[in-house]
């Protein structure tokens, strides 16, 4: 399931949901859960950061994330997959992104979570504008993110 939202998310709630089937029974088929949370950091690209605004392309964002999850499902045997990405105004240490993946075994869950984040960083239409000690600026895309995605080619 994909969500693009302004409001925060709760790690415990999302973890519990990953372990619960759609019919409310316990998901006992999967022995591995991997979760990732990305946060607003206080220092980036040489400047102190006070917060940021996340812009996105409504409609395409959801579609791009759905595609990434479908590609992950084609590569690994996955149980449940949850992606949440926040947009709008965020402050220091606020949660930005959640990726949660379940699978029978840990290898698939670890790899799929990393795959989803690597592609999200390069393919999902989100843009960060930071408030720094020198004013506001758009974050520059980083080559390391492109290289991280290429490992899956």
């Amino acid at each position, binding site marked *: 399931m994909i969500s693009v939202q302004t409001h925060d998310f709760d790690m415990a709630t999302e973890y519990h949901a990953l372990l619960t089937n759609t019919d409310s029974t316990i998901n006992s088929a999967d022995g591995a859960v991997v979760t990732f949370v*990305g946060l607003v950091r206080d220092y980036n690209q040489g400047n102190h950061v006070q917060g940021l605004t*996340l*812009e*996105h*392309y409504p*409609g*395409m964002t959801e*579609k*791009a994330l759905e595609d990434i999850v479908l590609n992950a499902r084609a590569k690994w045997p996955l149980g449940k997959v949850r992606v949440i*990405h926040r947009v709008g105004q965020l402050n220091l240490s606020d949660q*930005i*992104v959640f990726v949660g993946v379940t699978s029978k075994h840990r290898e698939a869950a670890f790899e799929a979570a990393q795959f989803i*984040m690597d592609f*999200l*960083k*390069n*393919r*999902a*239409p*989100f*843009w*960060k*504008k930071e408030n720094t000690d020198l004013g506001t600026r*758009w*974050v*520059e*895309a980083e080559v390391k*993110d492109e290289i991280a995605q290429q490992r899956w080619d």
Partner: protein
Amino acid sequence: MIKVLFFAQLRESLSCAELSINLNDPKFASTLKSAFTLEQLREQLANTDETWQLNMQNGKLLMAVNQTIVNGEHILQDGDEVAFFPPVTGG
């Protein structure tokens, strides 16, 4: 009509979030004899003025048609939603 969207620093530099382009407009007449590609639309927009030229000729720009990233060879159809945007920085 084609809807054209611009995002992030590109939107700010152009002071433009959205445009509607009529493919029957005389200025597209010469290109319309053959298929009209996304790259041709980009060139057309770059010809607007110096600001547009500077921004639309940035080689790093990404392009999407109907919310899927495509390259310049993509052939445009009436009713398409086109978007131009800088490299993404989410996550």
